[in-house]
């Protein structure tokens, strides 16, 4: 079969970007109070390192990264810490936040400025870590963790994901129009960190101004060592999906369950690249980002540079929010974004877009109708799945079949929802299906863990018994030593065979121990985040060690017996 050069499916919804791209990028008013959630990145929440009442400067760390995958949080205004408290978060839950009341002008707390070309990798990674830089495309994965990819994979291409394929969002577009040179410079820095030999910028053809700015910036810096290329692609959702973009630009497919780095690619959002450069060149931690403010309920839509922690309500009021017209508030895009239940939430690192939509604009979906298996979803699916079948299995809770039909390759882009004539929220079903399967796996893992703990106990008892037996044998030997056994009465071949068996058992136990050790190391290095999994692997390792010790004790006892009975 002919290899496809593009990802399958995709849709072309109306982009609705024009309203927010008419005005130039502007600085949002500095807020009087910021709320900084400690969990605004992928991974473990940060741990606060300030006291209530403490004075902090703009850029000063207020919470430290905790664990392998986590990110620092920095004060985004100069002022006084007003509270450390639980506050509502964007997903409807509540979580710890640092609240800072601004006082006076910005007083910047910066790290020493570095020239990335003259700085080694470790110092750059440490700087990214200390600056709280995370992916600004929406996933908020810590950039420093991502940049360490080189330790495990060989990367040849750094992809700048400027596709921005989702309707409404224009934050990257505006950022590139104004700061293309910084984005390119950031890309060069991250390319070096990842070990990539070239840079590919993927941008959709509905952003001519950003493209022109990029081309000008590229021409101005043309003599640089890392070759960079701009690829314009036709506007089609979801070409900004990491996997889809890599397929479209490089013709490579990220293996199922794998990472882009498995095929030598490394993707970054333009905003992330600029933030990374600012962290290194200017020593400025991540305290602001570009946010698209759009939707028909806003009189003055546009893109603003907003401090993290700025109340969403303030930004929207400044953009002329007509509250009665507001029907739905969305953070992110209309396809994959999150509907916010309230206005009293802060801008976080993942806030690329806020849509204040009217009822006509993003109406409530009509009631769900039965699936008629028309196959429109299959034509739209960018992962080559059969959503109509997956829907069937999700509804029937046939999780085995859902997995067999590659449920976990679904990127939840919502293209199937968009085309479904029966208005079935397919992506929602798929997310619920994945959650159910993960819960089931956790349940199975818990049972395994219990079994492993039991096995450990058995192994410990066996080892103690073996050691006791060895000591007893040694004592018996010592007691028997004076009376040498007359020749001919020596025990026949049996102990030798026994010794051989014990030696084999000991070797096997040693191999098992090494294997358990390796599994634990791999999980820890692979960024395994579930402490239960690590604990379980540790239990298994301990069991293997007990077994090894027992085998050694038995072998030693047998050897001693052998030596003393020539």
């Amino acid at each position, binding site marked *: 079969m002919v290899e496809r050069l593009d990802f399958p499916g995709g849709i072309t919804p109306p982009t609705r970007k024009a309203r927010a791209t008419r005005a130039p990028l502007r600085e949002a008013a500095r807020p009087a109070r910021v709320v900084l959630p400690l969990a605004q990145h992928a991974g473990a929440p940060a741990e606060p390192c300030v006291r209530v009442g403490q004075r902090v400067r703009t850029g000063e760390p207020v919470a430290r990264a905790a664990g392998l995958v986590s990110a620092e949080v920095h004060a985004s205004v100069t002022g006084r810490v007003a509270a450390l408290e639980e506050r509502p978060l964007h997903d409807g839950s509540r979580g710890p936040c640092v609240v800072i009341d601004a006082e006076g002008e910005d007083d910047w707390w910066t790290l020493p400025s570095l020239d990335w070309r003259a700085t080694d990798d470790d110092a750059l990674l440490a700087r990214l870590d200390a600056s709280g830089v995370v992916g600004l495309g929406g996933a908020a994965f810590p950039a420093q963790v991502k940049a360490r990819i080189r330790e495990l994979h060989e990367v040849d291409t750094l992809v700048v994901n400027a596709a921005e394929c989702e309707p409404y969002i224009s934050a990257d577009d505006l950022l590139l129009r104004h700061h293309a040179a910084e984005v390119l410079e950031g890309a060069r820095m991250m390319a070096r960190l990842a070990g990539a030999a070239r840079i590919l910028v993927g941008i959709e053809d509905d952003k001519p101004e950003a493209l022109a700015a990029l081309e000008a910036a590229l021409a101005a810096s043309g003599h640089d060592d890392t070759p960079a290329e701009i690829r314009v692609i036709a506007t089609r959702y979801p070409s900004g999906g990491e996997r889809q973009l890599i397929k479209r630009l490089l013709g490579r497919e990220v293996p199922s369950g794998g990472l882009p780095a498995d095929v030598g690619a490394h993707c970054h959002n333009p905003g992330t690249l600029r933030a990374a450069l600012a962290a290194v060149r200017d020593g400025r931690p991540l305290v602001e980002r570009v946010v698209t403010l759009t939707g028909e309920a806003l009189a003055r839509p546009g893109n603003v540079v907003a401090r993290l922690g700025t109340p969403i309500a303030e930004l929207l009021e400044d953009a002329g929010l007509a509250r009665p017209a507001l029907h739905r508030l969305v953070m992110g895009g209309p396809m994959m974004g999150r509907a916010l239940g309230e206005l009293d939430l802060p801008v976080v690192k993942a806030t690329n877009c806020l849509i204040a939509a009217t009822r006509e604009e993003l109406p409530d979906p009509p009631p769900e109708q039965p*699936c008629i298996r*028309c196959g*429109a979803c299959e034509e739209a699916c960018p*992962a*080559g799945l*059969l959503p109509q079948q997956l829907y069937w299995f999700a509804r029937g809770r046939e999780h085995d079949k859902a997995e067999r039909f590659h449920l976990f390759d679904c990127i939840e882009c919502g293209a199937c*929802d968009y085309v479904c004539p029966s208005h079935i929220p397919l992506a929602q079903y798929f997310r619920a299906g994945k959650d159910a399967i993960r819960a089931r796996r956790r349940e199975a893992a818990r049972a395994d863990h219990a079994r492993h703990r039991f096995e450990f106990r058995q192994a410990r008892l066996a080892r103690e018994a073996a050691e006791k037996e060895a000591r007893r044998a040694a004592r018996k030997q010592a007691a028997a030593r004076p009376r040498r056994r007359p020749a001919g009465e020596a025990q026949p071949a049996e102990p030798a065979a026994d010794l051989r068996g014990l030696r084999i058992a000991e070797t096997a136990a040693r191999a098992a121990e090494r294997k358990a050790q390796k599994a634990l190391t791999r999980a820890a290095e692979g960024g395994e985040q579930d402490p239960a999994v690590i604990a379980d692997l540790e239990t298994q390792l301990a069991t293997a060690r007990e077994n090894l010790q027992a085998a050694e004790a038995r072998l030693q006892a047998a050897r001693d017996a052998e030596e003393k009975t020539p």
Partner: protein
Amino acid sequence: MSLMHAAQTPSRRPAGTAAVMGWLLIATLPGIAALSWHFGWGVLTNVAFAAALGVGLEAAVLRLRGRPAGATLADNSALVTGVLLGASLPPGSAWWLILTGMIAAIVVAKQLYGGLGHNPFNPAMVGYAVLLVSFPVPMSLWAAPTGLVGPEAQPLGEVLRQFAGLATLETLDALSGATPLDAFKHKPEGLMAAEFWAASPLPEGALTAWRQVALAWLAGGALLLYKRIIGWQIPAAMLASLALLAALLYAASPSHQGSPLFHLLGGAAVFGAFFIATDPVSAATSRRGRWLYGAGIGALVVLIRAFGGYPDAVAFAVLLMNLAAPLLDYYTEPRAYGHAAATRGIAAREDDR
């Protein structure tokens, strides 16, 4: 989940189920018009009564099932089933025949399986097959092509008497004529095809009428394709495999087999290809699965017509392939992104091995 929907943007393709079914109804109009023009008022009484029964029976079963009827009826799917079955029955069928067929279609084949989207078999074809097996005589009395108007046309009153079940079998027999497929099927064993046609075995204009009806269904099918309501794979595969197999048989035995054109236009093949086989609920759903599904129907139609006991075979061919649809879907899954190869079938899970 997506907060935007294709319905909000102008497109050729109707974005909602009710609109899809609505366009399907519109697409049946040329075929029904051509049928009525040639075979008289009986076609219209069939279609009208079957459609009304479709809606009525669906509402009744929904009531029994304790489901809200309004929203479901608004999807127009029961109407479509009624119209399709009505158009397939011999013109001027009696009310009890239509009622039996519609009960089999809507109550048994559709609602007892869970309603729209849950039926493994095409409801209209289940109804048709039940009638064909249970009432072979009235099902094979197809009206002669006497036209809707004109001197020979059967008056509406006469048709209504037939519909009410008051006409005797003799009258019906006198009024009816065999369909081309039926006549050809039952030609004497020793008779050559050429001799058979030379003897003008059909009522005057019958062959022309059937061809025009097939072309009218084709026009409706073209509308469905244009509106992207159906994919082209199933009709194309079905008609291609039908023509190919018919050509092979014709080449092997031109004196006893019908020509490919006769097979294509002489019966319900075109109607079946665009309006029956394309029912997405009961068809295979992957793109390659649809090819195989369509091709299977086409092949079965020719095989049953040539070697089976029935003159036409669209209903049985479709039902047989409905049976095969889940299997086809398991074996024709597209290669998913990030996988080296497509998966085939349902493999045993590792812990079962």
